[in-house]
């Protein structure tokens, strides 16, 4: 069907144009790339919306490209955050005279960013498991270079750990694919073909078990499940804020997406074991993230730990299973992406104007940069699971699913949620409200380039407003796809 190709082609075309423009030595190319970055984000949103409405209208596709409710839902945050991050990057791109090769740096960003987005779109459309693996690996590679945008020793180290650990993980997921193909009578890497094999009971349980264990480690490393997470807080905090937004809000979700696809394949053969393993891994990650939130000292690391916690919750939701568990996990994925996007985007201006990422040095942010700090605080409450934001409802759904499984589990989950809320609220309110010392009458002149970034603020507000709208009323097509996807994954 032409519309899938169109949805995929638009971002890819923009990315290709950006690559070609980057090859040009002229200084004007950098200027053109700025526009291309912006366009790539909004084109991704367009693709996501296009796909969403078409799938909601009843279109389904299985083959090399595959489109169903699950892929459309996981593409939605990629589109929204892509548009927001691209908008925030409009001014984020470094001022021309930062250093000698600032131009080349921008050139790299100018083609990597659209490529990253295009690759992420491709992940959700991949119906072929080899293609899925390749595109997922490509998101790692493209985003690793984006993490190192600052070029400091810390960001290099973060990018290096990121590539190494998720690289080790992707080896595991490659082996997993091998085992999976060995477990079926005719090794076709097509997901829907494999699913029909699995449902017919043609999957060798022993091989499927190995495949799932490897997939859990492989995709788990990419999601950042505990204890495969150590790269996550480094990478997500060292990256520039728009990139952190995409890493936390979109890229990790895609790894979850891949894991869910594998889960659906092996579940008929493995039974409850597959779900329980996911549940354990998810709960452990959520607990680890919640505890680390309590003792964070750095704003962006705090947000990254909260991402770890939320990914744990989402994985645990799929592990709980049933329409309730899967539905709540999908809602949690959507709401977390929007809230975390708004958080990271607002964290950009706040840390720039505060001149630090240290939580205690950022004290009194609300006075210094009122709008981004207010957005940061409110979306912080959203991530912590406070109404009126939908995160509350999705977490309630998770708890409901946990109760259906076992009350003890639910109490554990509630403790985790309470811990993370306490930590987030403590740090964020302390950071926004209180000035450490009374503001001096002569404020120190801000450094060049630290003035407010209105584009990032606008992007943060954009993401936050969508979160609020989706919280109060989930648009019809999205709600419909949620039901369909919950039925599929539950």
């Amino acid at each position: 069907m032409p519309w899938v190709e169109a949805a995929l082609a638009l971002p890819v075309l923009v990315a290709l144009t950006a690559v070609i423009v980057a090859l040009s030595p002229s200084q004007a190319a950098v200027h053109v790339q700025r526009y291309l970055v912006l366009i790539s984000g909004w084109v991704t949103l367009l693709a996501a919306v296009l796909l969403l409405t078409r799938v909601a209208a009843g279109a389904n596709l299985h083959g090399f490209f595959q489109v169903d409710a699950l892929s459309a839902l996981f593409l939605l945050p990629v589109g929204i955050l892509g548009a927001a991050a691209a908008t925030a990057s409009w001014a984020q791109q470094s001022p021309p005279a930062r250093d000698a090769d600032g131009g080349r740096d921008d050139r790299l960003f100018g083609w990597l960013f659209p490529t990253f987005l295009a690759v992420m779109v491709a992940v959700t459309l991949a119906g072929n498991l080899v293609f899925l693996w390749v595109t997922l690996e490509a998101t790692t590679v493209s985003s690793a270079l984006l993490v190192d945008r600052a070029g400091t020793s810390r960001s290099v180290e973060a990018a290096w750990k990121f590539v190494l650990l998720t690289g080790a993980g992707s080896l595991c997921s490659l082996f997993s694919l091998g085992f999976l193909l060995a477990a079926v009578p005719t090794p076709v890497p097509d997901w829907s073909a494999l699913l029909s094999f699995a449902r017919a009971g043609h999957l060798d349980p022993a091989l499927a078990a190995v495949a799932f264990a490897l997939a859990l480690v492989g995709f788990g490393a990419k999601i950042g499940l505990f204890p495969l997470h150590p790269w996550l807080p480094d990478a997500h905090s060292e990256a520039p804020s728009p990139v952190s937004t995409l890493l936390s809000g979109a890229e990790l979700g895609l790894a979850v997406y891949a894991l869910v696809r594998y889960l659906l394949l092996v579940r008929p053969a493995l039974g409850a074991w597959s779900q329980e393993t996911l549940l354990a891994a998810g709960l452990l990650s959520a607990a680890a993230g919640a505890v680390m939130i309590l003792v964070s000292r750095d704003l962006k690391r705090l947000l990254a730990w909260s991402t770890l916690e939320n990914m744990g919750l989402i994985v645990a939701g799929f592990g709980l299973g049933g329409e309730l568990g899967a539905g709540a996990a999908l809602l949690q994925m959507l709401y977390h992406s929007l809230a975390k996007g708004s958080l990271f985007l607002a964290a950009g201006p706040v840390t720039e104007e505060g001149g630090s990422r240290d939580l205690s040095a950022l004290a009194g942010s609300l006075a210094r940069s009122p709008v981004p700090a207010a957005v940061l605080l409110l979306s912080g409450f959203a991530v912590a699971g406070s109404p009126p934001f939908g995160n509350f409802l999705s977490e309630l759904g998770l708890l409901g699913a946990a109760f259906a499984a076992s009350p003890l589990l639910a109490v554990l989950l509630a403790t985790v949620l309470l811990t993370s809320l306490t930590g987030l609220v403590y740090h964020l309110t302390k950071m926004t409200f209180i000035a450490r010392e009374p503001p001096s009458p002569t404020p120190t002149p801000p450094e060049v380039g630290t003035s407010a970034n209105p584009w990032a603020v606008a992007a943060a507000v954009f993401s936050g407003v969508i979160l609020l709208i989706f919280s109060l009323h989930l648009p019809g097509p999205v709600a419909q796809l949620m039901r369909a996807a919950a039925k599929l994954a539950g």
Partner: protein
Amino acid sequence: MFPLFFSGRGRKVAIFLKLALTLLGLGLAGNLAGAALSCALRRLSSLSRWPSVAAGAACLGYLAAGLAVLLGEGTHVVVLPMFHPLGGFSLSLDPLAAFFLCVIGLVGVAASLFGQGYLRHLKGRDLGSVGAWYNLFLLSMALVVTGANAVTFLFFWEGMALSSYFLVVSKKEDPAARQAGFVYLVMAHLGTACLVVLFLWPAAQIHSLAFARMAILWPGLPAGEKTILFLLALVGFGSKAGMVPLHVWLPRAHPAAPSQVSALMSGVMLKVAIYGLLRVVFTFLGVGPVWWGLLVLGLGVVSALLGVLYALMEHDLKRLLAYHSVENIGIILMGVGVALLARSLHLPALLMIGLLAALYHILNHAVFKGLLFLGSGSVAQATGTGDMEKMGGLIHRMPWTAGGFLVGAAAISALPPLNGFASEWLTFQALFGLGYHPVAWWSGLAGTLGVAALALTGGLAAACFIKAYGVTFLALPRSRAAEKAAEVPRSMNLGAGILAASCFVLGLFPSRVAAVLRPAVAALGGPHPPPPGSFFTLASGMGGASLSPLLLAAILVVLLLATRFWSGRMPERLSATWGCGGTLGATSEYNATSFAKPFRIAFAFLFRPVREINSGYEVSPFFRHSLHYRGEIRFLFEEYLYEPVRSFLLELADRFRQVQSGNLRTYLAYLFLTLLALLAVNNKWL
């Protein structure tokens, strides 16, 4: 506009319900409009009264809707379309919800009127956001009590906590306010976590989160599970209601908010928590064992006594009032406890009196505590401080405020013919009733001890308000600010005046109030026949006791007139007070610390007071030129319950941090070990 399902008797009821629904809808719309307005108008301070006006109009809607349902008797349900895996929002307005809606509306109208004058003078707060959160706070409370399923209830319960949190921290530069807000939020979420477990655990078996289904299906749950659910409800709602030992946030958070918000938090929000407790324990859980009632009664006694004792030690007017809220929640819980006991023992008359006492005191406390907080707000605005030691003599400068505060102080001290007396009398009757009924030795003991505790509480509360009123309003001003204080704008006094008038009305016509409360009592499982008594008297049905506040008031007026008449005939002589040869001034007055000293000494085992006196001298300690006194008391629960838990958790988290070593080889080892573990867990192939 919404699909409506009426269940009631006859056309009159249907009209009442339609009216109620319309008014509630208008009220909610008013709140939303107010919130939107204050966001839009945040830069225009001259227009900052409009959000308060919208809130006031909304509260009138709540009040009218609540009254319409209480007078019409019936329930209706509104379903709001929404996608959620657990089901969407739905609202229902039954007599119990209607009663609480009335409480929200009455205090809300007064607080909003007060707020129009008050907010314009607030310094260091963002008026736009205060207005918005204020409206959202009122909206959430109304939707909590009208919520018809657990999702709606929990959503707005959390919304109530969040909006009031933002009001508590609205003075952004104040670290104490932020700390108070944080403690509040943590305690609120601890409670919410309990409530989530409370509602969702049975839902796994009964497959419904609708309150109507819960009322039918919960009584069939196993007894052990019901016990856990009861305890969860007690902790979850108790932490919000300020029940000891979960009260620690209350004296911190309530004073930090703007005064009309303190009035709503103390007067109304705590009652919303009691609403939840009543709803769950009386309508969902069914008849429970006897110890449930004894536990609630005991917690009520402890809360009442500790609340009033800590209040006596407080010298900050608003903190003092906040501790009194703990005390009054204790009194309400005593009524609830007796009702629970009566239900377990199958004593319908006692059940009705207990419930009536609790509901009546809920209404009364909302009114007089609202009044007192509004008065303290006027005082704070006029003097710029909440410290009673820096006040004095305000009655001459702020006569209206002083009058309103006096009415509130008399009402909270349960002096007839004001409303506090009527409900405490009912609570006494309930406790006496428990003592009289020859059920078992322990019921007599519990009733008698309860009576003694309530009497002690009442005495201490009266002492405390003599201190609060005397030190604040009487004698000479003890600071420049108190000397220069001036009466507050008329709208603020009008807000307080509504509540002061309500104190009289609710106190003088208790049998009428009881008749209006009857549907709410019946909704909680109380018997239907109205309490015996005539238009002017309220009878408890316990040993023939009855109360006629109008008669009491008439006697009081006659006595007052008689004393004025006779004292006018006595010869008078004016002279200065004898000062032992020295001169008397404001510094030689009896102040709050000195007033509280006898109590500090008598209850030293509880307060464990610390005091420090530093005297400055040059030649000999007998000739001092300066004297510094610092005294404070230590808080039992903070020291032995909360602090150890807090430090243990932080220690644990810090240890956990070492997982993140920074060494890549360690990280790869994690990965490898995880893989091994996962493969080993699946021993089917090993």
